[in-house]
């Protein structure tokens, strides 16, 4: 499988990738979950990551912000370049990397504090701002996450008191409040209802002008609707990567075709 030649996205769009992954291996202890992944993520585009359960989509995504380092037994080999700089270089400041590469999780995870504080916390963490500036930035982030109109009068309520879909948008607001360049989303709509899902899809559409988005999804229609590029993962390998249109209309690989037509997964 490893000898499949990947077309890197550069052949089809802006030639300077936001993120370049080269020869990425990943290990959970002795268990290898990713095998020599190579991929280029286009700036200000949506890249969808699809593939059957357990194929390593989340694992791959969790390397980009080095969040896996929380767990002692997890290790990587290979390089991930953000704007051409290896994120594992000793000069890279981990906390700043995570500010630049935000992450939205499958289940909404509001902090145990008010709606306002959920967004303000990260701003205060990274920027010295006055109170009025802070208010402005919180409002801006909530507007960016299409949540402001719904919560403008509930800013002092606990974040957990919002609905599931609202909580997920609060998490998006929290992520964009610190002015990231990349947003990683790991099945952000799998735990919320269809209407809330539609809202988030619409939001992603709007966000991509400003941010580079990588989104893991199990929903083929969603991938086809919102993404520009699609990567198909299988058993830890990136089997196929290309323009979403091409992947969904004319997949080169037989496994990809089987998966998107729903024959397995």
């Amino acid at each position, binding site marked *: 499988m490893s000898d499949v030649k990947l077309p890197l996205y550069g052949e089809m769009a802006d030639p300077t990738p936001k993120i370049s992954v080269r020869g990425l291996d990943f290990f959970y202890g002795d268990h290898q979950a990713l095998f020599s992944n190579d991929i280029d993520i286009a700036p200000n585009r949506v890249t969808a990551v699809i593939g059957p359960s357990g194929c390593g989509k989340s694992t791959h995504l969790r390397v980009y*912000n080095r*969040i896996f380092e*929380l767990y*002692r*037994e997890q290790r990587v080999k290979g390089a991930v370049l953000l704007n051409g700089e290896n994120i594992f270089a000793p000069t890279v400041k981990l*906390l*700043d*990397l*995570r*500010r630049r590469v*935000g*992450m939205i*999780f*499958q*289940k909404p*995870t509001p*902090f*145990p*504090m008010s709606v306002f504080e959920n967004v303000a*916390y*990260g701003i205060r*963490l*990274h920027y010295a701002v006055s109170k009025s500036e802070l208010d402005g930035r919180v409002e801006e982030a909530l507007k960016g996450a299409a949540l402001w109109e719904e919560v403008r009068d509930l800013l002092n309520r606990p974040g957990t008191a919002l609905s599931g879909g609202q909580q997920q948008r609060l*998490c998006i607001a*929290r*992520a964009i409040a*610190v002015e990231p360049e990349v947003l990683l989303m790991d099945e952000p709509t799998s735990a919320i209802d269809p209407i809330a899902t539609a809202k988030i899809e619409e939001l992603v559409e709007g966000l991509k002008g400003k941010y580079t988005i990588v989104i893991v999804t199990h929903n083929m229609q969603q991938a086809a609707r919102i993404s520009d590029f699609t990567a198909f993962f299988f058993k830890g390998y990136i089997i196929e990567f290309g323009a979403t249109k091409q992947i969904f209309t004319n997949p080169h690989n037989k496994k990809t075709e089987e998966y998107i037509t729903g024959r397995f997964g």
Partner: protein
Amino acid sequence: MKKADNARRRETLDIAMRVVSGAASLIGIFFLGWILWTVARQGLAAFNIDFFTELPAPPGVEGGGLANAIAGTAIITLLATLMGVPLGLFTGVYLSEFGKSTRFGGMVRFTMNITMGVPSIIVGLFVYTLLVLPFKHFSAYAGAVALAIIMLPVVARTTEDMLNLVPNALRESALAIGMPRWRMIIAILFRAARSGLLTGILLAVARVSGETAPLLFTAMSSPYWMKGLAEPTANLTVTIFNYAMSPFDDWKQLAWGASLFIMATVLGVNILARTLLRERTK
């Protein structure tokens, strides 16, 4: 035929089991009720204004109270809390956040479990040789250290358990906005687990406020108001021990009063802790 026999036998055993376990529970409740009733009845008779405001009277003199012992117990327990709680809290943090699967973490956890099982009189004896003998006097701080040692493992283990209940997704989402780990622990984890942590602390306080043996060798007792932390200090539990064994009826009465006072306080703290815990699971 044989089958029917077996069925009957099983049924009889079921009933026997139920009767035995029910009876055992009843006996337990009976003694507990008896203790509560006795302490309440005898203790209430000792309660009056003097009990809370006066020093103990010398033998043979009417009246007197246990104000110094109440203050002493409060101060020793407070000092013990100030020492034992932060230590326990951070030990718990280490166990759940840093040393989860490390060798040292396992060692700490094991030690905490052992310490929790050490009889408190041994803790008292240990502090006696450490802080009383070398200085040649009993002291409030020695008593507080003994109680803090008893609190430490209780707080550490509940802290570990409560932090383990916080989902990893919350840790990750805090780190994912670029929060340093120490800040994630204090601002996010402590807040998410706050009622559980508070419950653990309250239960530890309740636990040590009834300890006698560790104070016997450390704080000892005193008929006077305390003037500093470096002197023998009156406290409720040792007072109960001394007064209950005395030949004087009014001292015995005071011992009952002190017992009721401790019991009511511990009960109050327990109720508070349980209310907090219920709020958490809601």
